[in-house]
């Protein structure tokens, strides 16, 4: 196989690195690689690294307990089909793993960890309006109202001044002029009506009417925006993108 690499400098540097973890003699032994990161400088990254180095077993147990507890405290189903049982239990885990905290943006639901198109960029691990709002209906159904509320709070924080609910918020949105210089943040038609539907579902299922009162202005603005897009037949239009705007998949092309 021929491998070509561009050289932008007059010295030779590879992007490949390696660590020799040492020789394991005959028998059983373990090796541990630790990865730590910080957005507040080297000292914090090193502190996290040192803490993780000495606590693998504890952290492994904590993580297992966290998911076990989640499964025990949301709606459990005993299904006669083992594949359906696994699918239901894994879907609860997968949805929970979509709850992501970005220190610069807040905590919200991402759309998954699949890569975007043919690239290696995890483009679906951004905060999406429609995806998080559809997912919030599932969270309500399994009784995880806290995560629904977090998700609704997050998405409403980035509502446009005219009431439109965001379609997608990049993980790097705080480092660029994401909401004004890029075409994607308010692209989709369905996030705004879904926001109203998801809030209604959350309040009806959880009884948390206080949250709806807190968000009343936001909800009203979303509704007014939606009404402003109605055509003569009362059907909402998605100005600038078209109401058939698609993100992925063959069905809509």
């Amino acid at each position, binding site marked *: 196989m021929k491998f*070509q690499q561009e050289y932008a400098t007059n*010295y*030779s*540097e*590879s*992007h*490949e*690195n*390696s*660590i*020799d*973890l*040492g*020789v*394991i*003699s*005959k*028998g*059983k*032994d*373990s*090796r*541990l*690689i*630790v*990865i*730590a*990161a*910080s*957005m*507040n*400088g*080297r000292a*914090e*990254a*090193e502190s*996290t*690294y040192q*803490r*993780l*180095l000495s606590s*693998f077993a504890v*952290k*492994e147990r*904590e*993580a*297992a307990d*966290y*998911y*076990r507890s989640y*499964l025990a405290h949301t709606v459990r189903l005993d299904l006669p089909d083992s594949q359906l049982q696994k699918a239901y239990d894994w879907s609860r*885990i997968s949805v929970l793993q979509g709850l992501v905290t970005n220190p610069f943006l807040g905590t919200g639901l991402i759309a998954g960890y699949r890569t975007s198109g043919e690239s290696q*960029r*995890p483009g679906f691990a951004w905060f999406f309006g429609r995806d998080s709002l559809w997912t919030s209906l599932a969270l309500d159904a399994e009784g995880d109202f806290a995560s629904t509320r977090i998700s609704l709070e997050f998405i409403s924080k980035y509502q446009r001044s005219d009431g439109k609910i965001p379609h997608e918020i*990049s*993980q*790097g949105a705080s*480092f*660029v002029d*994401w909401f004004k210089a890029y075409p994607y943040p308010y692209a989709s038609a369905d996030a705004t009506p879904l926001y109203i539907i998801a809030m209604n579902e959350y309040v009806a299922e959880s009884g948390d009417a206080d949250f709806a009162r807190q968000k009343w202005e936001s909800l009203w603005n979303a509704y007014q925006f939606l009404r402003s897009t109605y055509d003569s037949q009362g059907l909402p239009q998605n100005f600038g993108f078209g109401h058939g705007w698609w993100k992925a998949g063959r069905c809509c092309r």
Partner: protein
Amino acid sequence: MDGRVIPAEALVRTVTVRPESCTIYYAADTFSVAETFLIPINESGAYIKLDTETEQPLDVEAVFQRDFQLEWPAGLGGTYLNWDKTLHAFYFGEEQKKFAAVVGSPTAGEVSTGIRNELFRVA
């Protein structure tokens, strides 16, 4: 092993996925390795643990492509990495000294930092 480099991906036998981690099991004639990836809760970090059983001395080397950048559309500009002997780890940094990462192992010995010795190459 015995002076031979054996790429791990050729030896994958099973993959076990749990809510908190996943394990890739590699097996050859004289050794096996269970590689577990774990993301701890509420920590900005991750683990890779290699549980090994071997009949002959086995030298384990972790090779990776460094890509220390913010995801599109953001960017950090130039980034760098240094080997920290005290930490037994690579330190990843950038010029603002804000974004940082450490990748290492308590047993880490010889490393490759990516700087090649040769100054003239003919493709």
